[in-house]
């Protein structure tokens, strides 16, 4: 059963920085959470007062910020992992080997569909960034700039999830979205941890650009 959103953080709509959802997944034997978006009317959205008309523009700005910083984050990540990642990133960081939420929407897609896809993407990213940050704190504790950028990106992603929750709830009465998370890197070797991180980040760079392009007509000020 999916927990309903409460006044504080909800595990399905406001994922933590990556640890708890993985626990949940483990309990579910790492099966993707099955489910559909449920259209529920009448119950009202939590914290309505903070869900204002500027949330669309805020969401667009957040995606723009992530898009503007994604490549730099990825490049810095590669640099900090050292060899062979610095020189063989094409081979090692191919995201084909990992799960990444599909982002199969375009500018003509329905806005609701775009919002749901965005939510799934950033919920996944929030969890993944949390894992990557945890691993890098262990593997590269002196890489202050990388850790700061990971932290900032995670914060922006969290804020984005908050805004998407507002948009979904307020505009479409959607307050439950099934999210699938990737594999945890816990227990893996240092190399595998680094590789998983770079695979996620490489895919992230591709997808965030796509998201920025798709989002523009949907969230431009009308």
């Amino acid at each position, binding site marked *: 059963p999916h927990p309903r959103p409460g006044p504080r953080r909800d595990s399905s709509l406001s994922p933590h920085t990556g640890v708890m959802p993985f626990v949940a997944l483990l309990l579910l034997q790492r099966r993707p959470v099955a489910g559909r978006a449920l259209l529920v009317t009448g119950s009202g959205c939590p*914290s309505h007062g*903070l869900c*204002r008309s500027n949330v669309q523009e*805020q969401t667009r700005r957040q995606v723009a910020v992530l898009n503007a910083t994604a490549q730099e984050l990825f490049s810095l990540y590669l640099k900090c992992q050292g060899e062979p990642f610095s020189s063989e990133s094409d081979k090692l960081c191919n995201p084909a080997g990992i799960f990444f939420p599909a982002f199969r929407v375009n500018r003509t897609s329905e806005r609701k569909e775009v919002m749901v896809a965005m939510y799934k993407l950033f919920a996944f990213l929030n969890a993944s960034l949390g894992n990557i940050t945890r691993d890098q704190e262990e593997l590269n504790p002196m890489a202050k700039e990388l850790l700061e950028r990971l932290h900032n990106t995670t914060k922006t992603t969290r*804020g984005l999830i908050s805004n998407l929750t507002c948009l979904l709830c307020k505009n479409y009465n959607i307050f439950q979205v099934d999210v699938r998370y990737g594999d945890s890197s816990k227990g893996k070797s240092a190399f595998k941890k680094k590789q998983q991180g770079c695979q996620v980040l490489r895919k992230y760079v591709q997808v965030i650009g796509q998201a920025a392009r798709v989002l523009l007509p949907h969230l431009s000020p009308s």
Partner: protein
Amino acid sequence: MFSRWNWVACGFYLLLNICSPDASGGLVQSCGHIIPESPVLALGSNFTALCILNESCLDFGNIYASQIIWKIKNRLVPKEQYREINRTVSSVTFNDTSSLATPLTCNILADGQIEQNIYGITVTVGLAPEKPKNLSCIVHQVSRFTYVMTCTWNPGRHTFLDTQFRLRYSWPEEIFPDCIPKDVNNSCTITDIQFFVNTEIWVEATNALGKAESDHLVVDPIDIVKPLSPQNVSLTSGILPTVLQLCWENWISDAVMMLKFNIRYRIVGDTNWLEVPSEDTASTRTSFSVQGLRPYTEYAFSIRCMKEDGVGYWSDWSEEKTGMTIEDQPSKGPPIWRIIDSSHSPAFWTVHLLWKALKPFEANGVILQYEVTVRDKSSLSSPVKKYNVTSTNHTLELREGTYEVTLVARNSVGASPPSVLLIPASNSKAPVKNLRTLPKHDKLWVGWTAPNSYVLKYVIEWCLVSSSSDCIIEWQIALGDVQGIDLKGIKPFKCYLITVYPLYADGQGSGQSVKAYLKQDRPSKGPTVQTKKVGKAEAVLTWNHLTVEEQNGFIRNYTILYKTIDGNETVVTVDPSKTEYTLSSLTSDTLYTVRMMASTDNGSRTGPDFTFTTQKFGKGEIEAIVVPVCLAFLLIVLLGVLFCFNKRDL
């Protein structure tokens, strides 16, 4: 092993300790207690405390609630405030806790009127916290990627209690850890903020008497940002003489916030700032070319930024950056004039050419040299003479005639437009009319009426008139359409000779002169009078004019004052051009004292006294008396001799 008596002694000792009236705890039990224990009370409220005696203590002998007395800080509480609830409970009531102090003790008067303390409590009086007001927040950019949000509020009245303030903030779906102020109660700084999420912020104040909450502020932190000022500001010159390009680095990316700017600049040494119109810098950029500057001038620039839509706060002004525009050719030719000295020979002139150095905003650079060209217009075949000069004057020896002098100033970029001075053989053109002066505070205004013909420009000469040195000429040029000019640098109480020349396209008018003072004063000394000749009833007085340095103004008249020892003073006014005057109708053989006073428009000064004595006899009077007397005597003697001779003959 232990003897029986030892056991008894121990048991007795233990019993004694247990039963001891000492209420310090442990094995000793107090005889009563007070409820409530250590209350916190609202100031001005009412309060009732109960002292409850333990049953076990009643056995110590006649201890009842009626014997209880209450004390505040060892001062007795009036019995009217007591109430005996029952045998073991007494209450005390305070209608207004403002007068309550600590500690509050419950005491009893045991047998023999011995007061014993039963229990005591500390009482704390204070106020519930007021609602915190005026909550406001600002996000400071402290480094390139770091932002902190500082919120301040009015904590309200002093509560006299330990009051905790917490700054709380949350998103729609997330509440963050509270911000606890350190060492203050009216501000807190949050280091973990996120842009583009509406954040609810409020302050909670809590103490033992209650809780209060401020109004909630809902804000997107991006709308309350004070950015760092633009960094690494640099200036580039050389594009044009009137342009400097300002470049800088923005430490906020466009994705986070688009910026607008204010650019201000000033000439180094001047305190007045000029600003680039804000509409020209109303969008994100990293450089700007400032135009309309003066060539070869050092400027200081400073820049600040804020969110493009004007929501938020301006950054501080950046540190000043200075730069210099490049040179341009001089914008105008130097004013030029001449002084002609023909004293040694009317047919040959010594012509002193004078010109003024261009002001910096006219020179547009460093003037390297002046080029003087002299053309003899009287003789077209005469060659043109050219001179390169580095000073601002040049002397020529010329034959009397008409000359055209051209002057240009040259810097590293080029030459100024030429200044042309026509030196005619004679100043035969019409002069100005009605030349006059008027003092105006610290300046002397010189005015004239223009001649009928068209005048190109006027040259105004002035010099300080001095009896001991030459009159050193200063000069100034005025445009042909003005009929008056202010002369600066004129000193008060000094006489100036001012001459105005009209310059025409084809000649020059004769100079009209006037003497003037900016400000007059009384003379610094009076005339020294003496007699030139003294008679019986007249005296010719003489004096020298005061020097121009002594006059301090135009001498309007002299006044002669003379008197005898016991007579009235007679006053005579004399024209200032005179240096002699004859006093008449004087009394003969009388001592006179005379002095002179010189007067200007601003006062008079009297000279030293001079005394003289008129003669007893007038001119020829003695001869008129002696000669007749002698003749008469001679006649008498002659007559006597004749008589004597006649008498003998008879």
